[in-house]
């Protein structure tokens, strides 16, 4: 069980409002700490036209919910939010965010890092970088899988 944590999982093509999302977690007298992480499309080598994000509808929502529940069992959290976009995104666009709320800062920070580590190698998303005249699927990094071992 995930205790009394409020979980919010959103998979969408739309952009999100970080301030509004963070405000949702700022409720109740006992939430002292809110941590957010936002990931954006980087144009690493220059010339990126857009990024296409494919996902596995159905499994994506299940995987994200499982990851959020896992975090809520492990730390004392009042709320967990995971939002991940798919479709076609431009350089600089927001890709995804996680947010965690807790009494104390350490739980909120650790849970947010945990969510990111699991999300990177357990949630079925695939990124493709499209440049002028070519496109390439982003390779998974070994370090992403390895970063799970710390939890």
């Amino acid at each position, binding site marked *: 069980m995930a205790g009394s944590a409020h979980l919010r999982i959103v998979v969408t093509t739309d952009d999100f409002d970080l301030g509004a999302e963070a405000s949702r977690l700022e409720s109740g007298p006992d939430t002292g700490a809110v941590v957010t992480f936002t990931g954006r499309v980087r144009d690493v080598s220059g010339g990126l036209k857009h990024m296409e994000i494919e996902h596995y509808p159905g499994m994506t929502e*299940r995987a994200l919910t499982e990851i959020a529940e896992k975090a809520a069992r492990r730390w004392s959290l009042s709320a967990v939010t995971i939002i991940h976009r798919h479709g076609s995104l431009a350089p600089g666009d927001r890709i995804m965010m996680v947010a965690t709320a807790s009494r104390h800062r350490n739980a909120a920070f650790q849970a947010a890092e945990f969510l990111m580590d699991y999300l990177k190698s357990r949630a*079925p998303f695939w990124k493709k970088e499209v440049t002028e005249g070519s496109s390439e699927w982003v390779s998974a990094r070994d370090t992403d899988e390895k970063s799970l071992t710390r939890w």
Partner: protein
Amino acid sequence: MTVTVLYFAWLRERIGLGREDVTTEAATVADLVDELKSREDRYAAAFADMTTVKVALDQELSSLDASLAGVREVAFFPPMTGG
């Protein structure tokens, strides 16, 4: 039995489709992969290096040696790159 087979990312592109129904007697995921590879070159090419292919059974991550008994949906995809 008939299972729905899904392909994502470059597996989808190499095979040329994202979803198909497959009637098979394969006992394990590995058996199903062998059967698909023997069908057509595009499958053989997509599944040439299975160290870069992950599998989910009914939307849960699984492995090549897993049984297909009772499974309705099999998905093949490269390592995930979300976040």
